[in-house]
């Protein structure tokens, strides 16, 4: 094993844990009449390892944030009482209290794992040269053996959590706080993360506080169990096994997974059939949908880099039968979700076929009986046609919410399908009652807790009696109560004749399934061994690229006629093409010109608009119109060459170090730009949800416009959620006071930068010359 203690000792000095004293802590978020924590006292000795348990809403996470000194980072309210770590305010020494959050990847700030770990060191202004050994030691300590240049997006969930841990450890904390660190991981991965935590804590003697609602794996690792009740008061505190003997039953009743208490049974649901339901049209045991030989590809685009296509599924088969359930199992990243999406027509496979049983195709059940619909694969069906047959519960229940109230949400699809409101309403109410949501029927679904949202998403998915129910990891992170509800809904759907497909790691769900299909990751095409040659523009720094592209700004004042415009455009094109040349040895890079043309395509619209208005105004003179068109083209062409080579992170480094822009806004902006990809994914997920719920606007500008506003709203809610999680993670690593900081990435100015800027100036010179020399 590479991460032996003696190996690490040499580089990372060992610090022992600190004592933590919480006295009279009271916290009332604005808008709540009662405090979440009320005069709480708690003392932790140095090196003590504590597991914090309690029902959801008992203030466990709140207490953790208070110990980290970050309560006011992402919330506002009345705070009183004191928290000290070794006698100081928690954030007095940046990074002395490390915090790891539930969502793997929620705290990622950089485009490479090495840079991400270095974030905290930058915030305490460590010189750049001192960073690499510290970063390497931290990565080694958590067992991440890949190159520090690897992008965080390529890590699995467990690896992401270990990366977050490394980011905390590099700051040499004396207290480590873990907020449900394994809730979103499967059992094997969770065990792996726990063993890394155990190693680290033992070696460094850290004070440890873990919040988790699955207690089993942690009990051997801690020496104290503290239980909070629903009002945020400490009701039990002591040796873990002893506390469990006394409070195990009541904890289990409140939803905590307590070892030794038998697993819950799926909730028994008896539902009246939905009116005109698709479920039950295919006789029990017959195939509802079958995918054969499907291939699904994911294209990921990164700013300032090439797009990558990965093979998610290749040549896979899957059958779903009426009244039966299938569990898709396999390691994360094996393509379970992609295969399921292809089966349900949520994504279009690039190869292979998906067949849905005839009684369910739009020709038989839809409004528009057309012969071609009979043959169309489900990914081409209209929103209502798809919704009638397919239900989908994404892993993030929050994105599945579409109604203004809880009851509206459940009734969305039945009403979109034109089901009888009275009958559908009774079924919806029965579902809500069975899932313990009846008292929330009039509430705004976005205000529900995570577990309540998950139950609501299940109810809404099956309300209209779909024939194929797809659920993505439906039980991950759920407490016992929600677990029973989710399994109960799936069982009820199966009993009324639906085919149920779940992706899962949960042994309880696997046991309940009629069939288990193991999915393995397809072999990726091997990377080309010969490296690509880099175009000239790829060797230019971001600031020079930006400057060169912005050199066009004086052009409108300089160019009058189409001849002048044409001359400058020619200069720009020559310079741009020179920039695309890739000298040296190696494989020629692909698609350089295609990229430029693709970026120029939208410019054609702008050019046409300007040319048209100039033509209209300029006495319908073609010379005037073409002059205007060329002038706009001259403004846009340099950007088309340059944009593909701008790396946001490097731009941030340059803006802060060369232009001395304020550090914190620059870091915030680059961190947000790293997440651009996730916005893409969120947009797709929101649109897919609408489509499968039967409310996707298939046509009509007004409907589409309204949908765009609603989905943009959803995108913003998601964005703000990410922002608050990231703010916590960043402040836990010393960002709050990092007005002056160092930078792990250099911002050199080299010869290519000067040349690129020179090329930009050359464009201005050409314009001046054209103005003087050409008519």
């Amino acid at each position: 094993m590479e991460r032996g203690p003696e190996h690490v000792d040499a580089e990372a000095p060992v610090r022992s844990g600190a004592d933590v004293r919480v006295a009279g802590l009271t916290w009332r978020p604005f808008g709540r009449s009662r405090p979440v924590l009320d005069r709480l006292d708690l003392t932790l000795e140095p090196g003590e390892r504590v597991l914090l348990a309690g029902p959801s809403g008992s203030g466990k996470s709140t207490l953790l944030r208070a110990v980290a000194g970050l309560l006011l980072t992402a919330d506002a309210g009345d705070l009183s009482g004191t928290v000290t770590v070794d006698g100081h305010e928690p954030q007095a020494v940046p990074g002395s209290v490390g915090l790891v959050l539930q969502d793997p990847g929620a705290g990622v700030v950089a485009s490479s794992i090495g840079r991400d770990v270095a974030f905290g060191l930058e915030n305490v202004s460590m010189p750049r040269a001192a960073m690499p050994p510290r970063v390497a030691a931290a990565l080694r300590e958590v067992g991440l053996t890949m190159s520090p240049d690897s992008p965080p997006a390529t890590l699995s969930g467990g690896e992401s959590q270990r990366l977050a841990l490394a980011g905390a450890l590099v700051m040499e904390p004396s207290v480590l706080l873990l907020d449900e660190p394994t809730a979103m991981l499967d059992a094997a991965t969770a065990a792996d993360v726990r063993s890394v935590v155990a190693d680290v804590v033992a070696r460094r003697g850290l004070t440890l506080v873990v919040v988790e609602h699955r207690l089993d794996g942690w009990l051997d690792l801690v020496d104290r169990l503290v239980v909070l009740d629903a009002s945020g008061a400490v009701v039990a505190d002591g040796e873990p096994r002893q506390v469990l003997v006394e409070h195990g039953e009541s904890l289990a009743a409140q939803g905590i997974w307590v070892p030794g208490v038998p697993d819950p049974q799926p909730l028994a649901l008896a539902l009246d059939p939905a009116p005109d339901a698709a479920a039950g049209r295919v006789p029990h045991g017959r195939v509802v949908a079958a995918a054969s030989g499907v291939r699904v590809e994911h294209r990921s685009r990164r700013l300032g880099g090439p797009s990558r296509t990965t093979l998610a599924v290749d040549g896979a088969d899957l059958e779903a039968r009426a009244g039966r359930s299938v569990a898709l199992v396999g390691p994360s990243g094996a393509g379970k979700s992609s295969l399921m999406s292809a089966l349900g027509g949520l994504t279009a496979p690039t190869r292979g076929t998906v067949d849905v049983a005839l009684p369910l195709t739009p020709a038989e059940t839809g409004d528009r009986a057309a012969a071609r619909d009979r043959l169309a694969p489900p990914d081409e069906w209209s929103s209502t046609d798809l919704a009638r047959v397919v239900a989908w519960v994404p892993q993030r229940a929050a994105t599945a919410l579409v109604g203004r109230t809880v009851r509206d949400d459940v009734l969305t699809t039945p009403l979109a399908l034109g089901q009888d409101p009275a009958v559908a309403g009774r079924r919806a109410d029965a579902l809500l009652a069975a899932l313990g949501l009846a008292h929330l029927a009039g509430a705004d679904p976005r205000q529900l807790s995570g577990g309540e949202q998950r139950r609501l998403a299940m109810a809404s998915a099956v309300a209209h009696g779909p024939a194929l129910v797809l659920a993505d990891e439906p039980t991950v992170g759920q407490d016992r109560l929600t677990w029973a509800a989710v399994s109960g809904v799936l069982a009820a759907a199966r009993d009324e004749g639906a085919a149920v497909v779940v992706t899962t790691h949960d042994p309880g769900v696997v046991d309940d399934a009629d069939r288990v299909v193991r999915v393995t990751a397809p072999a990726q095409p091997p990377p080309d061994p010969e490296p690509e040659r880099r175009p000239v523009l790829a060797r230019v720094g971001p600031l020079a690229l930006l400057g060169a592209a912005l050199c066009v700004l004086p052009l409108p004042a300089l160019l009058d006629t189409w001849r002048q415009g044409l001359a400058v455009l020619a200069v720009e094109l020559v310079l741009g093409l020179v920039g695309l040349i890739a000298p040296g040895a190696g494989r020629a890079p692909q698609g350089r010109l295609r990229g430029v043309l693709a970026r120029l395509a939208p410019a054609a619209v702008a050019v046409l608009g300007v040319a048209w208005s100039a033509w209209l105004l300029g006495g319908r003179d073609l010379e005037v119109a073409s002059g205007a068109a060329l002038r706009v083209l001259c403004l846009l062409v340099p950007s088309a060459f340059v944009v593909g080579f701008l790396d946001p992170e490097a731009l941030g480094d340059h803006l802060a170090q060369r232009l001395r822009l304020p550090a914190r806004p620059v870091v915030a902006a680059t961190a947000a730009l790293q997440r651009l990809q996730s916005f893409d994914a969120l947009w797709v997920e929101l649109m897919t949800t609408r489509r499968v719920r039967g409310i996707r606007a298939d046509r009509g500008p007004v409907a589409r416009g309204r949908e765009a506003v609603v989905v943009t709203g959803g995108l913003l809610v998601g964005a703000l959620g990410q922002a608050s999680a990231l703010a916590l993670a960043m402040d836990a690593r010393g960002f709050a006071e990092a007005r002056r900081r160092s930078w792990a990435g250099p911002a050199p100015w080299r010869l290519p930068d000067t040349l690129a800027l020179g090329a930009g100036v050359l464009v201005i010179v050409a314009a001046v010359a054209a103005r003087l020399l050409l008519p």
Partner: protein
Amino acid sequence: MSNTITASGPLTRWRTIDLLTCAFLGVAFGVAYWAWGLAYAVPSNAVSAGFPPFSALFAWPWLVAGIVGMLIIRRPGAAVFTELLAAIVSALIGTQWGLTTLVSGLVQGLGVELGFAAFGYAVYRWAPLLLGGFLGGAFEAVYEWYSYWTDWGWGYKVSYLFLLGASVAVFGSLLAVGLTRLLAAAGALNPFPPGQEIREQRAV
């Protein structure tokens, strides 16, 4: 909004969450701008075929990011930061205006910013919204006179300025206020003044 709540602490002392929220709003709006850039061209060109300044009626959505950023964060610079970042993001994904979108983002954000600065960053109601929206639109119009509409006569130019300013002030403000309320109702603005206003209204 009977009681206006301003940002906590000194107004110029941005918290991490203020910075990140502006940044994430900017990125999200950048994606939305890019999508709007694909969708708006056809109706805009159709409407403005007879009277080119009418294209202003389809240009006001580009300023919503800055207004929303200011309405939420309520600190000096929020409009410029959010709008500029949205412009950068849409340019990096690829808009028809390339990197010159940065200049648009900057002048639009500055205009909106001035509207709120005129009221000392203490008022977040219609007066600064109308003023800021109008200024943002007007600034953008002047930049476009220079860069795109060089052939227009003054009649067109002035009509364009007033059309753009007025449509941002009215439609842009309406959309921004609507989005801010939607976010506050969704509980996404709890750490910010608009979220606190809602929570104080509902507090039991």
